[in-house]
């Protein structure tokens, strides 16, 4: 079951939304189903049980949902074994091959057939009916709403002329096929190209967007035409053909105009209303998605109420409000709206197609007439093709880019009939239309034929004709800018040439929109924003996400070749950024836990990435706050979040580290491990001296927790803490060292407990502020800093050593100035762990806040950052350190 669902095609665009909840439900359902299968009679019984508790419509919706969910396991069980959870891989392969050929809609109908057959066998009576109410009130709106809301508005209006024309002409073609009123009626309903079917098939085929929008837009608007024609003929039939006068035909045309235009107007009014309301939802973000759904649905219902074209109303409501609503509502609401709509639409689609299948099984409903069916099939095909050819011929007089023959073929072939026609025909009143059963049968066959046969063959056809496919490539910033410039350019040229063409009107509309509509419908904050800037930000965010996802080694591999460029410029074939990254990337990961396992060759590259990221990520914040001690609440909050984050990561990091290398304590060892992941014992000077100075872990912990509570970071930690909490000094620290433990002791500042840095007044020469350079973490800087720190430590070793040097060191050392210093490391288990007994840490020097500060064990240190200095340098440092410790101890 789950394997079936995770097969590539089933999880294609609309279905991927369904598949996750489905696969989640799968185990539950499969167990339920197996019990149901063992006693087939209980299955039909389970549904009527629900009905007393729920309103009929709801229960039918529920049961249909259930059936749609159940039918999928049924399907897989049907093809292989009833034990669904043990669905073997053979089924997976089978379904994979199967689903690449068969479109989803066909499969759903097949499922419906199977399900309907089972139900019919067990209960001798068709339980599930596609009720018109259900269809028109719940299923259709979700599909149309989704389509309308996400319709690319510009494309739609670019091709509006084509859509309108094809729409009307194709529909009117159809009714010529029969003279009788009833056949007229039938012609009207059967001629409707169905948005559901078209959407389902065309989305899978991925034809280019012009073609898609023409066929799909046509099918959407078609509905209006069909429904109106249907109603007109219905009334004609009711009156009786002999009573219809000529005037009635004109009335019919008039009512068509009224219904479609009225529907559009209702939609636009609701769109404006919705956009206007969302302007004021800043405080109640939670209702935004609901508002969108309700208003769009309300547009549908209102139009239906006045018997205007509800579908047109909904479509235009979606198209109209999209721009403003999307700008007004929050990002989360946008995502919610998007996914909920898509999910609902695909559920509705699934249900409709399954119902189609189910209804087809029921023999009582339909009567077979070979002549009628074959005639209808031939006629719809011929007329569709004729209509398309004629209408494109007219259109190409006006179109900038003419529709060529291939487009025409696909357009005529893409005229799939679907659920709308089916629902309409089922709706027919059997008393008024005696031939209803024939019509139903014919419609079902036509729908089956178009969806199955044409749906199956359209993909090979499109391939064979080499129809340009759609690429779901996001435009680059270059394209965005240049296309905007082109638009302006064309408008200007039209003005110069004195043509009031398309661009002229669009420009006028844009001016109007900018001056009035946007002002009225958009939030003030949004109104100011520029679209191009938004696009720019989006592209940047996309890049950032892919960089982070892939561990960011794109940045190092080609020096700031951002993914979107790389994919375009040098790898035009690879449209997918992540694919490109996966191919070229080495799977470098910034996750601290993984670092240990990264082979040495990667380390340098990784460290570069790290510098780059660190340098760039922290910079903006520093820029705002050049001075360490003047921070706002927000920054504090940011830092707290960051600290918490790092804390948890460090916890896990530490525990894993401890398990593996319990002896590991000092930075050189950590570094070594990062370099080539092999334990280094022979050189380790820390193993030699077993002197254990018991450091109270509780004390340490408390000491280190404190600064965190005080929300302070970086340099101030060292400087301020000591005067504040003198008791925290490890007892074992020699007096001489105590003096130099921190420079802050030196300046006799009475105000040291305050926020102001104590050395501020005392030693003016010290660079207190963290400079921009300091925040950039560059290996060279690091080396220097480290060397400096070593030398200063050496000077520390001689008791009356200068206090000052420590300070610039601290502030210039990128490591220390990074927020990591204040990181939760301080409270990390490390300090309280038995590891403390390792000589280095327990040495008095290291128990000074400077060195025992978690920096040494901080992720930065263990990260490849430190491994970047070349080897000789490293050795020298090590020697330094060992000398140092030796002299100390």
């Amino acid at each position, binding site marked *: 079951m789950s394997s079936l669902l995770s097969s590539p095609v089933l999880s294609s665009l609309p279905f991927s939304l369904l598949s996750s909840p489905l696969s989640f439900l799968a185990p539950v359902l499969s167990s339920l189903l197996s019990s149901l299968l063992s006693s087939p009679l209980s299955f039909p019984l389970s549904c009527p049980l629900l009905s007393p508790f729920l309103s009929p419509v709801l229960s039918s919706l529920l049961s249909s949902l259930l059936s749609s969910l159940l039918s999928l396991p049924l399907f897989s069980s049907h093809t292989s074994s009833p034990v669904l959870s043990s669905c073997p891989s053979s089924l997976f392969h089978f379904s994979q091959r199967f689903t690449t050929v068969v479109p989803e809609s066909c499969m759903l109908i097949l499922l419906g057939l199977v399900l309907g057959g089972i139900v019919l066998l067990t209960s001798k009576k068709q339980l599930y009916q596609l009720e018109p109410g259900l269809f028109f009130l719940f299923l259709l709106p979700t599909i149309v709403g989704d389509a309308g809301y996400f319709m690319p508005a510009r494309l739609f209006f670019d091709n509006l002329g084509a859509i309108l024309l094809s729409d009307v002409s194709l529909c009117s073609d159809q009714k010529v096929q029969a003279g009788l009123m009833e056949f007229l009626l039938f012609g009207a309903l059967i001629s409707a190209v169905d948005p559901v079917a078209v959407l389902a098939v065309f989305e899978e085929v991925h034809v280019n967007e012009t073609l898609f929008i023409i066929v799909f837009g046509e099918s959407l608007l078609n509905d209006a035409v069909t429904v109106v024609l249907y109603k007109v003929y219905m009334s004609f039939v009711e009156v009786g053909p002999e009573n219809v006068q000529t005037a009635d035909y004109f009335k019919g045309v008039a009512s068509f105009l009224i219904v479609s235009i009225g529907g559009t107007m209702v939609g636009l009014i609701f769109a404006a209303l919705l956009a206007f309301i969302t302007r004021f939802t800043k405080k109640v973000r939670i209702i935004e998605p609901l508002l969108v759904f309700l208003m769009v649905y309300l547009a549908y219902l209102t139009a239906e109420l006045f018997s205007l074209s509800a579908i047109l109303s909904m479509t235009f409501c979606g198209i109209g409000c999209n721009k403003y609503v999307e700008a007004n509502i929050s990002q989360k609401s946008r995502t919610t709206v998007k996914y909920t709509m898509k999910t609902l639409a695909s559920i509705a689609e699934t249900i409709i197609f399954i119902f189609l299948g189910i209804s087809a099984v029921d023999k009582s409903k339909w009567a077979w007439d070979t002549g009628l069916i074959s005639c209808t099939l031939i006629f719809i095909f011929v007329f569709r093709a004729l209509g398309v050819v004629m209408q494109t011929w007219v259109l190409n007089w*006006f*179109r*900038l*880019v*003419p529709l*060529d023959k291939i487009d025409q073929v696909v357009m005529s072939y893409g005229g799939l009939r679907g659920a709308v026609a089916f629902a309409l025909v089922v709706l027919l009143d059997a008393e008024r239309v005696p031939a209803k059963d024939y019509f139903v049968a014919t419609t079902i066959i036509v729908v089956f034929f178009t969806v199955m046969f044409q749906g199956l063959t359209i993909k090979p056809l499109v391939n064979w004709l080499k129809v340009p496919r759609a*690429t779901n*490539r996001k435009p*680059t*910033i*270059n*394209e965005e*800018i*240049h*296309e*905007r*410039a*082109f638009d*302006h*350019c*064309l*408008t*200007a*040229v*039209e*003005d*110069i*040439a*004195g*043509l009031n*063409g*398309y*661009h*002229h009107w669009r*420009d006028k509309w844009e*001016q109007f929109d900018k001056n009035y509509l946007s002002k009225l419908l958009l939030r003030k904050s949004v109104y*100011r*924003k*520029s679209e*191009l*800037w938004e696009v*720019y930000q989006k*592209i*940047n965010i996309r890049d950032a996400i892919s960089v982070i996802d892939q561990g960011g080694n794109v940045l190092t591999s080609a020096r*700031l070749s*951002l993914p*979107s*460029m790389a994919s*375009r*410029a040098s790898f*035009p074939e690879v449209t997918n950024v992540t694919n490109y990254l996966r191919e070229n990337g080495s799977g470098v990961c910034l996750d601290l836990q993984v670092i240990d396992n990264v082979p040495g060759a990667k380390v340098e590259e990784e460290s570069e990435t790290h510098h780059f990221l660190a340098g760039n990520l922290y910079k903006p914040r520093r820029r705002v706050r050049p001075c360490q001690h003047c921070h706002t609440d927000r920054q504090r909050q940011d830092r707290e979040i960051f600290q918490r984050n790092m804390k948890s990561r460090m916890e896990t990091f530490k525990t894993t580290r401890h398990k593996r290398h319990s002896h590991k304590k000092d930075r050189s060892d950590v570094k070594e491990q990062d370099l080539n992941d092999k334990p280094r014992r022979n050189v380790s000077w820390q193993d030699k001296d077993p002197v254990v100075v018991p450091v109270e872990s509780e004390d340490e912990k408390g000491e280190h927790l404190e600064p965190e509570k005080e929300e302070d970071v970086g340099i101030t930690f060292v400087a301020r803490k000591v005067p504040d909490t003198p008791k925290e000094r490890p007892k074992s620290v020699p007096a001489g060292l105590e003096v130099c433990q921190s420079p802050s002791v030196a300046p006799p500042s009475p105000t040291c407990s305050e926020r102001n840095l104590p050395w501020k007044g005392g030693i003016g020469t010290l660079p207190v502020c963290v400079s921009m350079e300091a925040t950039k973490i560059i290996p060279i800087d690091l080396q220097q800093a480290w060397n400096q720190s070593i030398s200063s430590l050496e000077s520390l070793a001689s008791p009356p050593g200068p206090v000052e040097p420590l300070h610039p060191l601290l502030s210039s050392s990128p490591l220390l100035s990074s927020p990591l210093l204040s990181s939760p490391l301080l409270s990390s288990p490390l300090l309280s762990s038995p590891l403390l007994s390792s000589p280095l840490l327990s040495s008095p020097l290291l128990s000074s806040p400077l060195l025992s500060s978690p920096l040494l064990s901080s992720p930065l240190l263990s990260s490849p950052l430190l491994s970047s200095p070349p080897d000789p340098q490293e050795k020298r440092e090590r020697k330094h350190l060992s000398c140092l410790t030796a002299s100390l101890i």
Partner: protein
Amino acid sequence: MGSTNSTLSKIPNVEELMQETGFTPAHIVRLYDRFEALDKEKTGHLRPQDFGAINRLAMNPIGDRIIGAFFSPGQETVDFHSFVRILAHFRPADKKHPKDPSMPEPVNSRTSKLKFAFQLYDQDKDGKISRAELLQVLRSMLEMQVTEEQLESIADRTIQEADLDKDDAISFEEFRKSLEKVNIDHKMSIRFLR
């Protein structure tokens, strides 16, 4: 058609012009009428201020650049032939007549459309869109909607993205490459009325 012929006869070398630009006689006549309407002083030449008289053009953010594109360097006026030749850039490519290899590249080809767009950016005609030039265009297109800093970051990003030889400017080749996926024929064409 009588008026068409009489108008055409007023234009010197009209055959050659039609051959070169691909406009039909009806197009030419229509454009000639427009030219006359713009040419208020009936000198047979248009000056920049004649273009400036078009109201809507004044509102166009890159209107002055378009006007500038009509005047070849050093010239103060444009005659009808050049006028038509410039406009011919925006004629949609005709698919019906396959390209004749012996003929020179038509003025409405993809490359020449792109060249036209390129020179709108490249004001100093050094064959490169520098950062400053890009910034100017962006500034005029975005007006007051974004801050200068945002503009600069957009410009930087744009150049970074298109710049293949890392000279901090977009050459024509790079410009063409960056728009490789765009249907220029669609985006840079207008429908001339017959």
